[in-house]
């Protein structure tokens, strides 16, 4: 047992950090929308899925004969990240207009919006499986779709017995950069101030001349773009995707958001990384099939002692 732990601890940590970064990026979208609207956007997992397919289409179109390096790699990575962020952000805005705005206008309860979210989630999955994936790829819509390799799996350096590869570094670095950018945007810009004001007190924000519709739109755009980036990184790392790829991942990312403190951007980062690490560490002792159990056990234990999550809610407490 102890031997296992010593042998597997460092490689597990690397794997946990990489996947935790992807959790964290998806968790941002859950957290932002919740902070502003008090709504759990369950269709967010499909926004991530749309991001993976956008990247798939772009990578397949480029189809490098061999994995890229240096400036070419940087360019292609930037291209798939921007394309996925744009398409996913757009899809998230559209989702808001179709599934949530009419309900918000009519003053429907939050439960109604939740059902609408679940409906939108299933609708998007099936739409992709039945129509969009066959049209994009020419393959059966429910099959796994694979992408060519653009990043070589070269070991950059080793820590003990853990190999840190090029792709690991790209995922973690890209995720952290996106998080910092988002954090700056929310804390330092005018639109960010609008987001925080709306989260804190929607009525007062309206009186101060904040357009709620605009703020909501921007919130969905930003959250969706982050899910798009997560989709791009996911596809680069795992090189395949499927119409329901977001289902389990989405639930886990939502867990990460709650763990860190729903409505708290830094909490999403922390929650994602913690979840990724704890899953992988737990798997050393119990086996990989226990990952989901471990994740939710940790969530329940944390919520027993800190009902608002590790860092608590912050979007609304922030001082403008």
């Amino acid at each position, binding site marked *: 047992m102890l031997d296992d732990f010593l042998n597997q601890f460092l490689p597990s940590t690397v794997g946990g950090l990489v996947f935790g970064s992807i959790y964290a990026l998806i968790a941002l979208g859950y957290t932002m929308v919740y902070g502003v609207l008090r709504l759990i956007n369950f269709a967010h997992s499909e926004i991530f899925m749309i991001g993976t397919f956008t990247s798939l289409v772009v990578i397949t179109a480029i189809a490098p004969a061999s994995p890229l390096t240096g400036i070419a790699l940087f360019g292609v990575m930037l291209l798939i990240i921007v394309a996925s962020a744009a398409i996913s952000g757009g899809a998230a805005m559209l989702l808001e207009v179709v599934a949530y705005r009419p309900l918000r206008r009519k003053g429907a309860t939050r439960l109604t919006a939740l059902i609408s979210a679940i409906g939108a989630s299933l609708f998007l999955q099936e739409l992709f499986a039945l129509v969009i994936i066959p049209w994009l790829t020419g393959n059966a819509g429910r099959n796994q779709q694979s992408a060519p390799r653009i990043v070589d799996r070269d070991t950059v350096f080793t820590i003990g017995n853990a190999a840190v590869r090029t792709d690991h570094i790209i995922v973690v670095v890209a995720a952290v950069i996106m998080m910092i950018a988002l954090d700056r945007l929310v804390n330092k810009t005018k639109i960010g101030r609008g987001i925080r004001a709306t989260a804190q007190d929607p009525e007062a924000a309206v009186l101060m001349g904040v357009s709620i519709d605009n703020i909501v739109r921007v919130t969905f755009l930003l959250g969706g773009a982050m899910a798009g980036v997560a989709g791009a990184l996911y596809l680069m790392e795992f090189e395949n995707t499927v119409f329901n790829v977001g289902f389990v991942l989405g639930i886990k990312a939502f867990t990460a958001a709650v763990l860190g403190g729903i409505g708290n951007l830094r909490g999403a980062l922390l929650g994602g990384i913690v979840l990724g690490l704890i899953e992988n560490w737990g798997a*050393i002792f119990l086996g990989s099939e226990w990952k989901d159990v471990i994740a939710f056990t940790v969530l329940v234990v944390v919520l027993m002692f800190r009902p608002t999550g590790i860092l608590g809610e912050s979007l609304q407490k922030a001082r403008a």
Partner: protein
Amino acid sequence: MSGARLGRVLALAAASSLVLAACAGGGGGGEAGGDVTSVKIGFMGDLTGENAAIVIPPRNGAVMAVEEYNAKNPKIKIELVQYDSQGKADQATSLITKAITQDKIVALIGPAFSGESKAIGGQLEEGKIPSVSPSATNPGLAQNGWTYWHRVVANDADQGPGIADFLVKAKSPKKAFVLSDDQEYSVGLADAVAQSFEKSNVTVERDKFSKDASDYSSTVTKVAASNPDVIVFGGYYAQAGRLLKQLRDGGVKATFASGDGSLDQQLVTGAGTEAAEGAVLACPCNIPTPDVTGALKTFFDNYKKSANVDPAIYATEGYDAATAFIKAVEAGNTTGEKINDFLKSVSFDGVSKPIKFKANGEPENNAIFIYQVVDGKVKLLGAAEEAKLEG
């Protein structure tokens, strides 16, 4: 709805179904007693549902066998009637009733899947209709005491030992890592493989993951830490492809093997050509690939002519199942009972393997066939006893 009205509706429904049945029950086969000039044999399976890809090839094989036979202008012609059960037990039940009472089939090729086979086995027994399934692999089917039921494939319980024994012979491993996800088929196959390895004194380590997981890094870490000689994954190609890719990316170089659930070109697309290269796949099915020789080659060419596609999974088994009945009819047997008696002693060299049935309907020859990914294509190496790995 009041009682009287309900009664009227039911009567109407019953009457209309009788009318429909009368319309549907077209020309029957040969009349018993007189000189029979044709008999009807059924084929049942999922022809249009979600798993049709596994049933259409054996259907094509059966059609081909019957066409070849009828082309010889025999005394007793065979008409093949197809029943699309969609792989569902309830559909199979109503279809078999129609097949026995109206169409008067004398034998049935199928049902293709285990669930539907289990559902209609009793009806076939009562109706004295012999059946030969080309693809139902559940071990329990042979344990019902049915005397009219047969199959031409090895069952799931043979597959695990088949994979393990083959690898022991080919690679003489000291340590094996056996993996599965959380699906029933996957766990069952992995357990059988692990037990067989242990019987051969190979050290076995295990890990399991959720079928929906996308990140197998913890599994890869375990395998890398254990440094096994062979890795066996019991499961389907979607998970196998992802797993194999991540294992190879994680620097694990040991031989990777899997069972029939992974026997598909999609394993190669999922894992990537480079990672999939050399992967070993076992299946109770014998699928000729374009490079085969001899009788299999003849079958390959004829099938291509007849169906316009390359033979796929269970095509040869469908052909052999049909051939067993054809031999019975050729010998002048035109009733279910007589055909069934004939099957007890039938013995011929089928395309997939030598065909002979045990008393419980299982095939004498329960060969497992070995395939390997060579240059990005799944290639048939032959029956496990004589197959030699490449590379």
